[in-house]
């Protein structure tokens, strides 16, 4: 007995406080599932939705408290659990974003599920589990932990995508997402293995220290390329985007809302932390790759988006284009570029949630009325809803006094600061092409006649979600300072354990 204890591994010190947001989001669904199976019959049907929303809020509070600690007695960032999980402004900001996505999606998802008659508490459990995976990615300080996060995030979303069991499109979306996602995971894992081979570690801090002194970088390049494929798939960057339109089109609208926000945040969390920080020493080698990915994503997302006739597909392509813009910030490989990318990600998270909430309302029973014709005359039928959607669309187009404009402004500023003029020009031109896409929808709502369309029922929860996202988009678009300072405070720090 005594001998056994002596030879056992050291138990790493764990900073429970730093993990608290993650523990809330990961623990709550497990506890809730247990309780619901026992008491579910006796509780109101709306309970799962409200509990999920509350868990999201609790996570935000916990993350804010941890972030506050960083300014006080602790260094800017530290890692815990033997250097596996990083607690810094970066992970806390992205944790908050994912929690916002959970809260807002859960709120309006309830009415959606009731309308579609696919109500089940599991939907919300999966939502929280998936979010916890995203939060693991946000703080992952080790490639293996990152992979775990990706898998937890993705597997739950595969199921959610297919959760509208009576719609063939939903089934197809789930399967497609699963097959392609598994493929991408394999790339990611292979990249991790190669990186381990090249540097002797999967810990990001060790990789950062080792990468500068490598004599033969061939293996590290291979690893880098494979990691980019895996993460590029998650953020839906061209040419790893092929799944996006079909999956966004087929999946239930609240799930798309979650995918466009939380899943993207998770993907970018991994990408930014691995490339901009850990592999910062190889920036000269990976910036050209990101340059190409960014250009392709922005241009293809915008150009192919404008020929679509389905609003969900249009916004799917626009989300590809937005991923390209965020990559422009990442491509700069500077701290300004990092904050620009984070700003854009924050802005887009809210815009995406709001936009897909509008679609989930307009799509009506069966979640099928998502053609652009179905938005005809929306301004007459639901003026406030149309105005909200218009603001979200114009924000995506980059119209001033919205966070969407400032996001574009900052990423292009970051590109220009590093003298990437070509990238900046491509970005602005694709923004103009993209504007056509959004204006088509706006025009359908305002200038077309839609008297014969079925009535639209806007549940309070959806109205609330849309209102929150619209107000956020406009308020911080005008009074920009607080949000700008927040993201500048959220730079990733990689600390060895």
């Amino acid at each position, binding site marked *: 007995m005594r001998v056994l204890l002596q030879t056992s591994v050291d138990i790493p010190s764990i900073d429970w406080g730093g993990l608290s947001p993650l523990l809330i989001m990961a623990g709550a669904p497990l506890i809730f599932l247990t309780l619901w199976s026992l008491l579910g019959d006796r509780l109101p049907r709306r309970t799962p939705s409200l509990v999920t929303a509350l868990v999201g809020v609790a996570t935000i509070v916990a993350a804010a408290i941890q972030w506050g600690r960083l300014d006080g007695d602790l260094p800017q960032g530290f890692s815990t659990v033997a250097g596996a999980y990083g607690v810094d402004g970066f992970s806390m900001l992205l944790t908050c974003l994912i929690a916002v996505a959970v809260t807002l999606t859960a709120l309006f998802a309830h009415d959606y599920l009731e309308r579609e008659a696919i109500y089940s508490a599991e939907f919300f459990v999966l939502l929280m589990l998936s979010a916890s995976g995203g939060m693991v990615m946000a703080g992952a300080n080790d490639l293996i932990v990152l992979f775990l996060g990706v898998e937890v995030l993705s597997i739950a979303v595969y199921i959610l995508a297919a959760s509208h069991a009576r719609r063939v499109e939903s089934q197809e979306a789930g399967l497609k997402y699963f097959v392609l996602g598994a493929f991408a995971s394999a790339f990611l894992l292979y990249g991790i293995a190669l990186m381990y081979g090249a540097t002797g570690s999967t810990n990001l801090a060790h990789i950062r220290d080792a990468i500068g002194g490598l004599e033969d970088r061939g293996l590290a390049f291979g690893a880098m390329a494979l990691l980019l494929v895996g993460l590029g798939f998650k953020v839906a960057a061209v040419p790893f985007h092929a799944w996006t339109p079909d999956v966004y089109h087929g999946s239930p609208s609240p799930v798309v809302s979650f995918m466009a926000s939380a899943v993207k945040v998770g993907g970018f969390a991994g990408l930014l932390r691995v490339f901009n920080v850990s592999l910062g020493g190889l920036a000269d080698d990976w910036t050209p790759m990101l340059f190409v990915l960014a250009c392709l994503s922005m241009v293809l997302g915008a150009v192919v988006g404008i020929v679509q006739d389905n609003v969900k597909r249009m916004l799917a392509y626009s989300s590809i284009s937005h991923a390209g813009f965020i990559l422009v910030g990442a491509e700069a490989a500077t701290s300004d570029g990092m904050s620009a990318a984070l700003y854009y990600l924050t802005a887009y998270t809210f815009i995406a949630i709001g936009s897909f909430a509008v679609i989930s309302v307009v799509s009506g029973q069966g979640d099928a009325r998502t053609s652009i014709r179905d938005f005809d005359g929306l301004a007459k039928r639901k003026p406030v809803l149309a105005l909200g959607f218009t603001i979200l669309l114009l924000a995506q187009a980059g*119209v001033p006094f919205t966070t969407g404009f400032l996001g574009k402004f900052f990423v292009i500023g970051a590109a220009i600061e590093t003298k990437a003029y070509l990238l900046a020009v491509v970005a602005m031109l694709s923004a103009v092409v993209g504007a056509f896409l959004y204006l088509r929808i706006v*025009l359908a709502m305002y200038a077309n006649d839609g008297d014969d369309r079925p009535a639209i029922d806007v549940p309070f929860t959806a109205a609330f979600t849309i209102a929150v996202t619209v107000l956020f988009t406009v308020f911080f678009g005008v009074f*920009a300072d607080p949000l700008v300072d927040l993201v500048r405070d959220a730079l990733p720090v990689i600390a060895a354990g």
Partner: protein
Amino acid sequence: MMPVVLAADVGFPLLPALVALPIIGALLIAIVPSVRPDAAKAIAILTSMATAALGVWLLWQFETTSAADFQFPSEQSWIESAGISWLAGVDGISLWLVVLTVLLFPLAIIAVDPGHDEKPYFAWLLVLEAGCLGVFVALDLFMFFVFFEIVLVPMYFLIAGWGHGNAKYAAMKFFLYTMFGSALMLVGMLSLVFLHRSASGGDLTFSLIEIAEAQSLSTNAARWIFATFALAFAVKVPIWPLHTWLPDAHTEAPTAGSVILAGVMLKLGTYGFLRFGLYLFPEASTWAAPFFLTLGVIGIIYGAIVATMQKDLKRLVAYSSVAHLGFIVLGTFAMNTEGITGALLQMVNHGISTGALFLLVGWLYERRHTRMISELGGLQKSAPVFAAFFTVVMLSSIGLPGLNGFVGEFLILTGTFVAHRWWAVAATTGVILAALYLLWAYQRVFHGPAEGENAEMEDLRVKEIAVLVPFVAAIVFMGIFPKPVIERMEPAVDALVAHIEFHVDDFDEPVTQNRGGSGWADAEDGHSKDGENDHGDSDDHGDSDDPEDDSHAGEEVDH
């Protein structure tokens, strides 16, 4: 050379109030119940009138002697970490555009009713007013850009929602075309501030004055960046060949939209050229001047010829804008006090006369439900007052001496003649052509026998006359006694020209001795001090010939 400075603060935040007031009005309209369209209109009139009162007060308080400085300054940090602030001020260049804007909006709001969906219509108009004012008072590049861009949104909705005919197409074309223009300006602007930072070693700043006075960029970089700015302004003005959005947007827009588009929004581009072209990039502007002069002349002649061919009266007025704006571009790039003063004056004149023309055409359409010249005729008999007002406004647009249009065009041509003689000669034909297309159109619409509905057309109502009276008063006043207007512009224009001379090594302002706007009558001993324009006695010919050309042309066609 005295650097341009911010004048002392006057205490009351006049310029923020000027921009905020219409926004408040728009928000008020948004919360009015939509069953009360009259309330929405009342709020719109009241807030635009209040804004106009503020604008007039600003004019009253404006110090003529220090018109070169930015007066009524207001500064407030906006995005601190990026060096962006709300920085506003008015000098002799922006003063009259602000005044034009605040006066034109209430008139446009009173003049025409949208017919349906009053609430959003008036709210959008007020948002548009705030946006335009924001552009004219902005002294921060970022602030300028956001206001320059935001005006697209209300105008887009006005055209799409209340326009005629192919309004959807026109709105989309307008938005995308102008957004394309300014897309590259954003890239240029960011390049400018980052290059300025690395050259000056200070913090990031978007302050126009700081960057313009420092002139820290290399010649090559400045030229590239000027090109991006110039593209944005050229689309907005619009300069030939980037004008193709204009006829569609002007023709399909609702009447008030056309008035504002022509009266105010086109000036965003020409004003941009002065403030963010010549002032910010003096060397690059000098370098590009022949290019823009040429495009200006092409615009004048092309616009006039195409206007002559139009069958639709509103489209004719739209194309006449292309020609008029060609004159403004010409004056701007003449790069001397006469030319720039004339260009500024012509911006105001064009706002007044073309604004009034669009109103008249709009009312004509309301009465006759057609704008086709061929379907109109003899309206003089059924609507004599209408015809009388149309005549005055039209003659102003033609540039008849004694009316405002003449003063501006004359100064522009004088300035251009001294600087670039043959461009001025070519441009003068535009004056004749203007008389041709407008008088010919007038003849077809108002003269001849009146048949059918033309014979029973209702004359102007009292409200419409009341709206037109200020326009006509301005037309006559500025034609007879332009001095109060010009003397408030001139110090700022002089400072701008001095700024260009100071920063561009081999540039001297091409001048005649009769400097300034009020003295065109005594041009006898005018001569040029500039070497390459040393054609002393020809100047006299130019100065005395132009008005004759112009008045002859007017008379001949009239008879």
